[in-house]
């Protein structure tokens, strides 16, 4: 009998398949599959006040990948708590809320409001530009990453997962910094910064000029970072970046992830999370794995 359970920072997920922040909408994704099948639903980044996001075009297709420059559009934490959370309550899955901000205070404001809700965990997206530091991302250096982790850890009554940006020279340095600062887990990777030019229109495809590269194109970078970070810290890791199939999920688990998130794959195939879960089970059956621990230890 296969056991897919995994414990992430004290929260028991019934399986390791989660939705990557920003690629899941309970109502809309739920039209394609049963949300109860997920190990956890990770919701789109939410900020202290509503954000409009960027003008369009926000999406560009690239070879084996895509760019997005949504600009973190969201209705703000109050709307989220009042209008979106109640809908999520009906599902038998863990709820992880992704949090964004432009200052540490903004992050903290969101976290404080989420403290009083039923959600299971908080995922902190530190790829956002830190406006106090001139727009450098919070995740770009270990000092800033450490500081924001400490502050959020101090006020959060939920486990906090720090979601790291891959656009750094040494991901292990950042990972060690957030672990030392009290992070309960790490998600990686967020998108790689990229750009596409429409050579006929003679301008960037995205209104925002640059955007985040995701999808199978970036999987080797993501697997490498999960592998490196697994060997640098001991807190749980949610691995993501280009997971398209059950075997991709296994690849992340072998690299050292405790769970995985499905992002771009859900745009390419709306039922991807449940298909990937099914493929993971098939792989385990065919290769004699009974639980995730065995997969995670297969390469050690």
């Amino acid at each position: 009998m296969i056991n897919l359970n995994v414990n992430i920072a004290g929260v028991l997920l019934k399986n390791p398949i989660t939705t990557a922040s920003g690629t899941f909408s309970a109502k809309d994704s739920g039209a394609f599959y049963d949300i109860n099948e997920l190990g956890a639903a990770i919701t789109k980044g939410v900020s202290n006040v509503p954000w409009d996001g960027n003008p369009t075009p926000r999406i560009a297709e690239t070879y084996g990948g895509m760019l997005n420059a949504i600009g973190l559009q969201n209705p703000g934490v109050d709307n989220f708590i009042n209008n979106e959370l109640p809908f999520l309550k009906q599902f038998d899955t863990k709820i992880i809320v992704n949090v964004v901000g432009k200052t540490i205070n903004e992050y903290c404001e969101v976290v404080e409001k989420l403290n009083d809700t039923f959600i299971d965990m908080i995922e902190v997206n530190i790829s956002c530009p830190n406006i106090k530091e001139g727009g450098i991302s919070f995740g770009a250096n270990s000092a800033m990453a450490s500081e924001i982790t400490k502050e959020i850890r101090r006020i959060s009554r939920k486990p906090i997962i720090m979601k790291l940006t891959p656009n750094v020279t040494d991901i292990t340095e950042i990972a060690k910094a957030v672990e030392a600062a009290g992070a309960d887990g790490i998600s990686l990777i967020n998108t790689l910064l990229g750009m596409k030019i429409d050579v006929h229109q003679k301008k960037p495809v995205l209104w925002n000029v640059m955007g985040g590269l995701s999808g199978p194109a970036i999987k080797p970078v993501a697997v490498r970072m999960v592998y490196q970070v697994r060997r640098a810290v001991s807190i749980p890791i949610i691995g993501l970046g280009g997971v398209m199939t059950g075997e991709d999920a296994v690849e992340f688990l072998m690299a050292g992830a405790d769970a995985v998130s499905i992002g771009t794959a859900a745009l390419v195939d709306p039922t991807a999370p449940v298909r990937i879960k099914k493929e993971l089970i098939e792989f385990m059956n065919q290769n004699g794995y009974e639980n995730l621990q065995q997969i995670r230890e297969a390469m050690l």
Partner: protein
Amino acid sequence: MKKEVFKAEIAENKPIADKIYQMVIKAPQITDNYWPGQFINVYLDDKSMLLPRPVSISSVSEDTVTLIYKVVGKGTEEMASKGPGELVRLSTNLGNGFRLEDVFNEIKGTSSVVALVGGGMGIAPLVGLARLLAKEKKVRGLNDEDLKIVAFVGFQDEPVLLETLEDSCNRVYFSTESGAKGFKGNVIQLIKKTGIKVDYYIACGPKPMLKTLAQICKNTSIPLQVSLEERMGCGYGACVGCVSKTKEKETSKFKMKKVCADGPVFFGSEVVWDD
């Protein structure tokens, strides 16, 4: 409603003008729940292109769906390369269609004119819309004196689907930018030139055209529905890639709505056209 992605068989796929194709697909999953103005996602075989291509449902008949599309890049090229009997991967119906109830609420029902306006490929969804309008007209017992359905359609060079539209419209006016056929000019100039008094506009086409029409409708207090296009990621509401800025009627609050899931049809008055 439950949605799915499935493979369906192509019954016909042929060019109907330069670079414009008509694809007929056997897909009862779509026809069963079709409402004019909806679209579907076409998923490609070429693995270098991950994202689906949104295409309006032009019309349906029994268990087939008709798409009218223009080859503008690699995705639509792949679509054009397929022949009858081959399979194509599709989503079931996406988006909300045109709001006919609003049309019939707004028009008085005596000597009123509803105008369908299409620019370029924007003509595609008007075919199914015209059919349903004509049917509703009959159902409601309205004759041509009570309600005229006219269409204004503009093309680059070569008109398509005129006869198809004529089947359900009282009159179809058309123009070409090049002047190769019909009135020379764009569809807005065509509307002005005909001088017909219209009581309700329903339009689909390039954003500049819709914006101009919205301006006209605002100035003359004529109701307008538009079908918007936006570069899409998922096409079903998950990625927030395809938004349009809108203003809530009641509260005057701005909201970035998803074209794919909240639209693609919006009231002209609801869209903030300035961006």
